[in-house]
């Protein structure tokens, strides 16, 4: 009693056979072996399983795998582009935000979603974007700094891409 499901993850097309009650998180972790998305609570309260579906943040533990059919899914493993790290990755790497790291991919995906939507977010928008992500190790301050830094790096990258970086 499995359903065969086409999934588009990190730009690659897959076909997975999963029980119909499986969540997207289970399909990613246990079928596709993309284990960067974590299971912290399994009921939508911790944010550790955050992935992007069509660019928007989604809790993979609350999303049925079948509901993701035909949509573009991005996980932490897909953040880097052609071997180049995403500004969010560079920012989290630099800022020393991480301790145990278990919350980290969810935090980063929430941050990525925010920056997709609002390239130049306000502090309030950043707070809101991270409000659903729990961390048990840090005092959140460095994580917040990392998101701020990611916004900066992304803006710089955009300027470079537009060739406006002179002066």
């Amino acid at each position, binding site marked *: 009693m499995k359903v065969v499901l086409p999934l588009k993850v990190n730009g690659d097309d897959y076909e997975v056979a999963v*029980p119909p009650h499986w969540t997207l998180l289970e399909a990613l*972790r246990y079928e596709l*072996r*993309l*284990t*960067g*998305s*974590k*299971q*912290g*609570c*399994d*009921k939508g*309260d*911790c944010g*550790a399983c955050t992935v992007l579906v069509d660019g928007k943040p989604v809790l993979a533990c609350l999303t049925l795998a079948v509901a993701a059919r035909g949509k573009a899914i991005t*996980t*932490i*493993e897909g*953040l*880097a582009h052609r071997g180049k*790290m995403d500004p969010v*990755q560079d920012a*989290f*790497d*630099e800022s*020393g935000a*991480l*301790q*145990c*790291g*278990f*919350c*980290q*991919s969810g935090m*980063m995906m929430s941050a990525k979603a925010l920056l997709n939507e609002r390239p130049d977010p306000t502090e309030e928008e950043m*707070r809101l974007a*991270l*409000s659903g*992500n*729990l*961390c*048990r*190790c*840090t*005092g*959140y*301050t*460095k*994580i*917040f700094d990392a998101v701020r830094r990611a916004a900066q790096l992304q803006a710089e990258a955009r300027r470079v891409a537009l060739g406006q970086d002179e002066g």
Partner: protein
Amino acid sequence: MSRTPLHRPSPHESALGHVTGRARYVDDLDAPPGTLVAQVVPSPVAHARITRLDVTAARAVPGVHAVLTAADIPGVNDIAPVAHDEPLLAEGEVHCVGQAVAVVVAESYAACRAAAKAVVLELEPLPAILDLEAAVAAGSVQGDLHEMRRGDVDAALASAPVRLSGTYRTPGQDHFYLETHAALALPEEDGALFIHSSSQHPSEVQAKVAEVLGLPRRMVRVQVTRMGGGFGGKETQGAHFAALAALGVRATGRPVRIWLNRDQDMTQTGKRHPFYSEYEAGFDEAGHILGFKVKTWADGGWSMDLSKAILDRCLFHLDNAYYIPSLYFFGQVARTNTPSNTAFRGFGGPQGMAVVEEVMNRAAERLGLDPAEVRRRNYYGDAPRDRTPYDQVVEASRSARIHAELLETSDYEVRRAEIEAFNASSRVMKRGIALQPVKFGISFTHSVLNQAGALVLIYADGSVQVNHGGTEMGQGLHTKMRTVAAHALGVLPEAIRVMATATDKVPNTSATAASSGADLNGAAVKQACETLRGRLAEVAGTTLGVPPAEVVFEGGEVFARGGAGRKLAFGEVTQAAYLAQVSLSATGFYRTPDIRYDAKAGKGKPFHYYAYGAAVVEVEVNGLTGEHRVRRVDILHDVGDSLVPTIDRGQIEGAFIQGLGWLTCEELVTDAQGRLRTHSPDTYKIPALGEAPPDFRVALLTGATQHDVVHGSKAVGEPPFMLALGVVTALRHAVAAFLPAGAEVGLKVPATPEAVLRAVMGA
């Protein structure tokens, strides 16, 4: 030295793995095809006799490979770390809701659930004791009592100008490590097992698995790559799940994975011990404590686990940073029908300090003095005010210095005056400010545990593997060990790989606990590296034509002191050493010197040294709703000469927030049947970004070298947790502003909005 990573900021040793999603935790590992999953069948009731346990039908559920009970254990049915009082699978009786009665091993969790439903479990109810106060009243205790005394406390209390008495209760706390308990057990040849465990104590997992299976320890190897948080919750309790998985391997011959979902983790595992205390205290008019009498009970849950040591540490911290001339302390572990409580950051220390802090607050409020000043007057000082209740001498207490520096840098006096003015004019919102000192003893109080080992391997190409006995749970231990090794060998940190903790590399290790991971393992790593550097110096000395003592290792280069002459690459020297048939592996070992404790007498020197710190906390309370928030926190903390300051700051911030959770928003609720009702984050609230102080300033004490500890550093994991006690004092300050002058503040912890509102209403 110019080119050492020591005492400098450092990126996390697996930062890259984390930001790319490649860093693996136990449940992320690639298990071989055919791996089965296991799930516990928990007791549904708090206390009962098992009259029938029949798993025949459960075994017949499709996809199920085994349903195992106590009768299926080939070795010893015991998983207790110390007292041999905790069967892995229930035998005859169940003692709490959630206790493991059987374990199902199946092809899917769905099959496990179906099989669990098919288990026939008939129970005859027995009376259950569900909370600590009831246990104390009923005399339900376990283990020995622990006492400390000094002077004639009754006389001191009788003649004290200010007398206080009361009871105080501190709550439990769920660890809520983001990664729940997990293990993956793999069969090896000849009946041996290889176990990946999310555990702070791989050697104990190895020992317990071996006992349960009736094997010598050499047949079991345990590996811990990293944990998604531990905080003490994986010190003993990871062994249960590893042993259940191992039992599954034994029964089926297949690899077995076990992973708890959040509800299972919260309902089946122990938490921070609630403590209940009765106290009497006497002060003089100037706020000096004269006598202190405390009887305290820890809620151990249904078995001992580590409760005795936790009770001990509570008693060792009933003084916090204060000299108490006469005293009597009494402590005992109570037994209740709840999951066995266990280690949690601070390990009884926070619960002990909370009592003396309550007393300091009440005394200050009674005397109309600034609570910070009352604390200052009571700090340890010169002899005879330098003796702890257990007679250890507090050498050169840093409390007074930290107090003075922090008052200054946090602008305490000015802000306190501003707050008084604000409170006089604001009706609904009131503010409070407080200074909280911490003195915390460093060492395992069971002295034998203070030992550690390391194994360092250098390959001929000059790259290095470091193995040590400590586990990485997010506290940055591996990064610190890499720093220590890089410094000792004079190589770049990138030349070093810190290996997963493995019982086949370093045997008989202690838990990574008691904040001691870096102190103990750091000293062992340093020793091993220095042995190897000594050997390499001989080789390089020959090439460079100088005596070995004149050879310098720095930044990946090897050269003669003074820098003149040839510079060899580290890899050239190691290659030369290989060709010269020199051994390039070495072990290191360390044991803390000069600590001992006589529990009968209540005297000794249980701690190698003390860690100090203080926080100034400002809060704001809404008098209509009881809602409150922390506005600003300033911390000055003593980590000695920090091995890696970025890591220590992270530890300080994180510990404070965890303490804030314990004291203000995390509330465990158990119903009349002994079932935990708050078993997921929708009902159990840990601090989120919104609770973090918007203004959070952390500084490390300078000029604070700690002699006799690796590179002058100090332990950091637990001490800052207790700085959060300042939140309670600050809340009391704000609450008092709502009350008539001189009224007693009755604030309970956790100081949830509800508790604060009660206090504001004087209820």
